[in-house]
Structure formats: C-alpha cells, structure tokens
C-alpha cells in the first residue's frame, strides 16, 4: 500500500512534467525519462561532492538537480525544438535523438554502474499487529509490516510540490500566461505574450519536475544511466489515461496507476499489475480517446 503511494507520488510529478509540456507546447517529449535519469545522476554527483551529513548533500541535490536539468531542457528547446518549429512529427524524432544523447552522455561521464545516494534520514517504522494468542489480545511486530520514515517524506513532499504547482498554475501571472498559451497560441502572441520564451520555460519546468521526482526517489532506488525507461513508459500510460494536457487527470491517473500497482503487486503479482495498467490504457483509448479528464478535440 505504501509502496504504491510512493510510486504514485513520484509518478505524478514525472507525468505532470510530460503532461505540461504536451498541454502547452503540443510536443510529445520522448526524452522525458532521460531528464528523470539526469536528475538522479546529478543528485549523485552533488551528494558525493558535498560530503558531510547526507542531509546536506540531499538538500543541495534537491535544489540543484531540477535547475540543471531544467537548463539542459531550455537548451534543448532552443537548439532542437525551435528550429523545427515545434512540428509534431519532427519533435518526436528530435526528442528521440535527445534521449540517446542524454543516455550516452550519462554513460560516458557517470559510467554504467548503479550508485546509491544516502537518504537524509531513514528509520524503520514497524507497525504492530494484534492477534488472539495464549494471553488474549497480544500485540506483536511481524516481519513485513513496516515502513520507512523517508518513504513517508517522499509522499508528503510530492503532495506539497503538486499543491504548489497547482497554485502557480491557477493563481499566479506565470500560470495565467501558460494557460493562455495552452488555450490559443496565436491569440496569446497577439496579446503580447512572448510565446517562444514561455515554451522554453515550460519545457525547462517539465524537465525540472521529472528531475525533482528523481531526486526524491534516488535514495530509495539507485541512480543508473538506463533508469529513464520505466518512468517514461509509466508517464505515458498515466498521461494517456488522465488525458493529455490535463493536470487534474494526470494526478488522478498517477494515483490510480501507482496505487493499483502497489496493491495488486502485494496481493497478487507485480506482473499482473503491469498487465492491468496496460489493459486500462487500451480500454481508455477505445472508450474515451481523449482520456478521463481530457477535453474533446474541437
């Protein structure tokens, strides 16, 4: 259950980045998973070069990794996406190229090993279980029924980030501009919105969200140059189910997929969980092609 929640939290952040980029820019970012990987790898570099208490390195990574990944993404936007004029097909090919460039760069600099980042804090929290024993109702701590304080923190942090993101999108001027660009690019341009700069920022923000998710997860898993694969696939599943470009849909779908993955894995089998997620995508595509919360194309 908690495993699922951790998965859902990280997935929501990653998929949100993908969904945002698609919603505003109409760009299917195939390299999204690599920005996730980039976040994890940068987190490792930052955490190991700073040293001292693991928390110091972790906080530094939390601040630096999304920014660096975001800057790389802005560069990608300027150098690759803009010259092809955000043509849907060309951007897909372009981002596939970016995927390989990032992956192989990580391989060449970071190496093929998986490396752990130490969590800032980690305590095993055992949950008690009650059972009628010889002495009546007895409380004991069986194996397996436990969680970890860091995992709880990941869930909390993800919820906080999601809330902050929602506030920015709905309450701030930057959010207003982004939503305006999403609604109608031409009109936004006519109203003096620097669309090209908005695109760069959105692409950077999307990558930054993926990187942020990666920094949160890297003390639980490990940084590895091939780690971008699974999050990309799951993000696509989530975005398709939730509806491309819909923030609410993305979050709901991430929770749905993440939690069901956790629960089905624990009680049945992890393979079955993957099958069900894929089946869900097929069903959504058949019966509601625009996604659960997507708007019907005009």
């Amino acid at each position: 259950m908690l495993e699922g929640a951790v998965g859902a939290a990280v997935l929501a952040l990653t998929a949100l980045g993908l969904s945002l980029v698609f919603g505003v820019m109409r760009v299917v970012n195939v390299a999204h998973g690599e920005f996730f990987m980039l976040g994890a790898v940068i987190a490792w570099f930052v955490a190991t070069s700073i040293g001292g208490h693991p928390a110091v390195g972790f906080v530094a990574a939390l601040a630096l990794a999304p920014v660096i990944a975001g800057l790389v993404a802005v560069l990608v936007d300027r150098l690759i996406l803009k010259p092809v004029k955000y043509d849907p097909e060309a951007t897909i090919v372009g981002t596939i190229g970016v995927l390989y460039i990032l992956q192989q760069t990580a391989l060449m600099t970071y190496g093929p090993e998986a490396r752990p980042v130490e969590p800032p804090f980690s305590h095993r929290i055992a949950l008690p279980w009650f059972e009628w024993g010889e002495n009546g109702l007895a409380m004991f701590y069986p194996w397996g029924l436990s969680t970890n304080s860091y995992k709880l923190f990941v869930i909390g942090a993800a919820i906080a980030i999601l809330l902050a993101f929602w506030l920015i999108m709905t309450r701030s001027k930057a959010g207003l501009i982004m939503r305006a660009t999403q609604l109608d690019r031409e009109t936004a341009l006519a109203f003096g919105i620097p669309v090209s700069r908005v695109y760069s920022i959105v692409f950077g923000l999307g990558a930054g969200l993926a990187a942020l998710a990666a920094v949160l997860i890297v003390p639980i898993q490990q940084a590895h140059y091939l780690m971008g694969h699974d999050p990309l696939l799951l993000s696509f599943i989530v975005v398709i189910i939730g509806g491309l470009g819909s923030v609410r849909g993305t979050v709901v779908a991430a929770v749905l997929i993440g939690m069901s993955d956790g629960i089905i894995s624990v009680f049945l089998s992890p393979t079955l969980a993957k099958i069900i997620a894929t089946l869900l995508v097929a069903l959504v595509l058949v019966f509601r092609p625009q996604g659960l919360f997507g708007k019907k194309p005009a």
Partner: protein
Amino acid sequence: MTRKLMTNRRTVLKGAAAGGLLAAAPLAARFASAQSSAPIKIGFQQHSTGIGAAYGRWYGRTTEAAVKMINDAGGINGRPVEIVAEDDGTDPKRGAEVLEKFANQSGCDVAFGTLFSHVVIGSAPAAGELKLPYFVVSEGHHVASGMLNRYTLQPGITDVKSQVQAMAPYVSENLGKKVTMIYPDFAFGHDHRDYFTAAIEAQGGEVLEQIAIPPTETSFTKYFPKIPRDTEVIYHVMVGPAVLTFVKELGEFFGPSRPEIFGFIDSLEAVDLASPGLEFLEGTYFWEGNPRYAQEDQTSHDKMFREAVGVDANGASVSDPKDVSTYAHMFGCWETLHIIKAGMEAADYQGPADRAKLIEAVEAMTDMPEGDAHPQGPKRFNGKTHQVFGVQYISKVEDGKLVKVHTTSIEDTLYPDEVDYTTMSF
C-alpha cells in the same frame, strides 16, 4: 520505446589501444624463437555496459592481469597474447554480433569471457557456426546441460547446478528445512530454482515459495509479501544494477525478526558490505565462489592473484576501497586464460586451422591442481560435458566481513553427465 544499447566506441578504442601497447612492447626478442611471432588474439566479450557492467569492469581487470602474467612468462607457444575487447552491452543479440566480429574482422583465434547466461545462450550458436572456440565464464548450467555445442566450453568456473547441489546439505542441516527462494527471472535464476529445489528435497527439506523477479526491476518490497510466514530460510540470489536496493529492502522488510538468510554472493557482488542499510546481514550466510575477504588460511596463490589484479584484503580495488570487486566470479577469467594457454600448448596451436585440435586438447584435461594458474582451488574438468567442477565456499557475515565457515569437496558438486559433446562432429 525499446531500449537500445549502442556500441561503446570508447571500449573498442581502449581495447585496440591496449592491444597496440602489447604489440609495441619490446617483446620481439623474447618471442623470437616461435615459428610465427604474430600475437595470439583472444576475443574478449565484455559486459562493459548494460546490467552486467560491474562484472565487465572486473572481468576486464582480471583478464589484463592474467595476460600480463602469461606474456611475462613467454606467452603461448612462444607467441605473445593479445586481447581484443568488445562491449556486448550485456545483450544476447549484440553478443552474437561481437563473436562474428572476432571471427571475421579482428581475426581472433578464440573467444572468451562472457558471464550473463542469456548472452552465452544467445552467442553460442554463432560460435558453433563460425567454428570459433568459445570459452565462457558464466556459471550457467547451459554448457553441461547439453543445450549448446562442441565449440562452447566452460573450463574455468563451476556451474550453478553443482554449486546449489553442494549448498543444500549445509542449508538443511544448519539453517532450516522450509525454504523460500528469491531469484532473477531468466536462465541463470531458473537454474537456481530447478536445481536447488531438487537438491533440498533430496535432503528432506522443501521449498515453500519461489519468487521470480525480472532482472531489470528497481524496487523489490512489493515482491516480499509473498514470503510465507512459516519460512525458516530465505534463499536469495539477485543480479543487475539494483542488487543493493534489493538486499536493503529485504532487510527493511524483515526488521529485527528475520528468518535465517542464505544468499548467493551474486546478490552483493561489487557492493560494499559496509553500505548503510546492510547491517541486518550480520550472522547471515553466503555462497562464495572465492572468498572476497582474505581468510586466515589464505593460500600463497590467492595472495599472488589479489596482488596481480590489484585487489586488497577486503576484496576492493587497491586504488579505491569503495570499488568492490566481483571476487566470487572473476577468478574464472584468470583460470580460463591459463587453460587456453595449456590447451594451445598441448595442441601445438599454430593458427585458426588448429581450432579443433585445441578443443580436443582441452577436452582431454582432467584434474587441475590448485596453484598460481588455479588460485581458487583444485578443479576437475569433464571433457564430455565441457564443464569444470571445483570446491565451493560458504561464508558467514561476522563483524561486517565474510568469514569462511565451510568448504565443500569436489565430490559434493558432481552429478551424472547429461551430454557427451565429444561425440559431436566439428
């Protein structure tokens, strides 16, 4: 979104550069007595990238050290040895391509070095077609099971079937009879599943649950609730980049009330036992192909081997104590190269035309005494099944170090032949 590994050109260049250095060294005088002083080329199929990267790195270092030792002693048949290293990306398809390159482009005499069983199984048919002797260092039972061909041999490392068979009596007598197995879901893990289940049943024990985990999995806690409550012993073996996460999550899952745990050191190869989160391993048991920590009764051969490869008494690199070796496996490269040398000398190997003679010479080998060429221990080669047998070690974690508590005999590891490759034509 298929995951594709591109050829790592750096590795190729490195291999070429290393080869060039070897060729350029002032060895001309020393090798002058041979009929041909051209180097003997050994194609090294290396897991430089992909899920086997940590093994690839250390297999590379061991190979370099073994070749240096062989060349310093005059090479093979008076000719220097040259290693042609190619990255296979730990990918079966790429593995077969690499073998083809060895045979057709680089002009290698033999190929060697592969660890991951799916790469061996994917590459061996190519070796058979190319008629290229293929010396694997893989542990898989696929060689001795008869599924491969006469050109594929495993003379330097024992196979999973013999290893688990030798472990079962110790597990059932000292740890418990009700076992739950956790293993990676591919050929190597299936060998563990099939042969350990049979072996523990022969000891009067039983396997309660078999939990298969895909080798590319990154989070494991969700698999653990399937462990039955009456489990006495957890038997774990895991590979891939996420092994540390696997063992950590296992510890977190059990907390202070764990059952006995018996693992194959594969679950922690190239991982520092002092990593945070691994404290719970204290008092658990591991199979080791070769003890990672220098033991009290360390042989002079092990000492020599450690020094040559650059490994300290804790099994880590002498230059970086955090860079832990794959000590339980990499001796296989060292021993295999010495067997290639012995085989080529027995067959008076001159060039690719003598490949069949080389295989026959290796097939004729039997007992190999412990020594500088075999630092892990004495070996017994079975020419019919192309598989070597040797002693196995069981270690217990004490004060954060692996201490050897049991050594099996070679007899413990033997089983009836399942194939006779010598009856197959070349």
